[in-house]
């Protein structure tokens, strides 16, 4: 538990504290500046306008879908990266984590040349009568593309930390690999899975560049909250600020909930002793 730890020695140099405070101010001050500019009288009408509500709902819907997709794809990816040994593993890990450092616009262009009308796979989809680019599906794909590495990274680290000792015991007790994964491995890394999913959700919620490039900005279809904010900024700064605040609140609530969920799965403390 954090709190009273007066007895433990913590030799932090004074100048470190000063720099840390400047750093914290650098993060907090812009948020405060934004909140100071909120037009409180008009706040409710601004965030309940038709386009705002549409953008918020679309953002939540697509982010939830993208998070689900991240979990479905990310768990097997993390397991293979953490547990298997094969040639080119390091290269593959770097490639999978590339979206972390790639400019989102570049990701959007890459997706366009994959799933677009004339893209690598898009042509085949087109023949089946399915158009992906500039649809809500495209929004989900763009968000998944940028958010997936967060989940994989978080889960892979946890899998390595937990190790294979419990899994070996499970196997010698007669459990098949699938049973071991479901009943032992996943429960042990649940806190990391939750925090990874939350990071992915937050990243998906804030996605802008890849979405704009790959999905466009169509109200109610592909115009998520960040796109709406960017658009409003030109014509109605008050609306942009109000919606930004909404996005901040959603992010804080999600992180808070996830933290609670992490606390709830407190059995990990017993495991690590």
């Amino acid at each position, binding site marked *: 538990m954090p709190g009273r730890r007066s007895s433990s020695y913590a030799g932090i140099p004074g100048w470190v504290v000063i720099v840390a405070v400047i750093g914290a101010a650098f993060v907090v001050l812009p948020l405060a500046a934004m909140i100071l500019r909120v037009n409180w009288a008009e706040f409710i009408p601004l965030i309940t306008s038709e386009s705002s509500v549409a953008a918020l709902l679309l953002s939540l819907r697509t982010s939830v879908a993208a998070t689900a997709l991240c979990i479905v794809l990310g768990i097997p990816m993390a397991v293979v990266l953490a547990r298997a040994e094969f040639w080119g593993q390091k290269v593959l890990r770097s490639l999978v984590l590339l979206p972390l450092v790639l400019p989102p616009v570049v990701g959007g262009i890459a997706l366009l040349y994959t799933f677009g009308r004339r893209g690598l796979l898009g042509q085949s989809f087109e023949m089946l009568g399915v158009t992906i680019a500039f649809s809500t599906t495209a929004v989900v794909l763009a968000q998944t593309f940028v958010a997936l590495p967060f989940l994989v990274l978080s889960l892979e680290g946890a899998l390595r930390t937990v190790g294979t*000792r419990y899994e070996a015991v499970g196997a*010698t*007790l007669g459990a*098949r690999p699938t*049973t*071991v994964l479901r009943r032992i491995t996943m429960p042990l890394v*649940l806190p990391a899975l939750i925090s990874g999913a939350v990071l992915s959700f937050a990243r998906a919620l804030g996605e802008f560049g890849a979405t704009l490039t790959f999905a466009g900005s169509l109200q109610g279809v592909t115009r998520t909250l960040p796109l709406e904010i960017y658009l409003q900024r030109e014509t109605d700064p008050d609306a942009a600020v109000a919606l930004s605040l909404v996005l901040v609140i959603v992010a804080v609530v999600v992180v808070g909930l996830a933290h609670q969920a992490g606390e709830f799965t407190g059995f990990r403390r*017993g*495991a690590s002793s």
Partner: protein
Amino acid sequence: MTFTFAATLAERGFDVELTIAEGETVALLGPNGAGKSTLLNLIAGLIRPDSGRAVLDDRVLFDVPADAQGARAASNAIRSRWMPPHARGVSLLAQDALLFPHLTVLDNVAFGPRSAGVHRAEADARAHGWLRRVDAAELSARKPGQLSGGQGQRIAVARALASDPGLLLLDEPLAALDVSVAPAIRRMLRDVLADRTAVIVTHDVLDAFTLADRVVVLEAGRIVDIGPTRQVLDRPSTQFAAGLAALNLLLGTASAYGIRTDAGSHVAVPVGQSLPEGARVGVAIRPALVSVSATEPFDPALNILPGVIIDLETRGDLIRVRTDHLAADVTPGVVADLDLSSGARVWLAFRPTDAVAYLL
């Protein structure tokens, strides 16, 4: 459930052949790094041998031909057989209980039966039965985090047995336990291992005497001694086994007048013991029956050997004087009177009738 095993692992210099009869418990002794855990992991299927074959009750656990090394991996895969750990019916119990921290005690014990496809109610009933066997029925609703070390190991034993293994492997099951709880767990193990085929790795001779029918001494990846527990530990053939049994061991060759030790001394053996001349023999003496003196004693009835003290170690109310040949347990008074310290030259003596000489 007869078990036959042979495997090599070049990387660790491991080459062991072993057969265990149905219902037999074998204790595996050896210094650290001798390959004890490697042997268990090979049997459990957690590592693969370079070559070898293991059969448990007509089921082939693995069969890797020796010539596989040079052969192409693809053709090797066709000829060699490999059973995954979960299909082997071999349970591994480690030094740490390793209970699944997210499951209750009951669910931990029911894990094996559940994994084998047994329905929940039936699996729980079996788990309750095993918890009663290990005297832990009242703990069934607890989480592993709420258990003491001894309780955890009891549950781990119940969990290992609940999966009904054909062969049970125990890797130093008592090593991590408090001295005060180990005897109770040892007694419980003796009861449950009575009619089971099992291999137990241990550093404690008491475990070997209490739990095992036979002991195997492993050194540098090879078996150096094997036989019934009493024979191996009362008449050791290696310094390691002698050390475990807290015995002095002199190795040598039988001569017409007694025994010529490898170090070049002459040792008389009890009258009436006939050892064929030229045979390799061992002589075992308890350290408590060896006396120490600063000058060479004149007594033709004693075996007298020179020695240089390596160290002194307090053992209860006695002090063990270790020399380059023999060790002797003496009282602190003797140590003070003779002013014994490391590097001192001393004479060690014992009566021939106190020694046991035997063929190797």
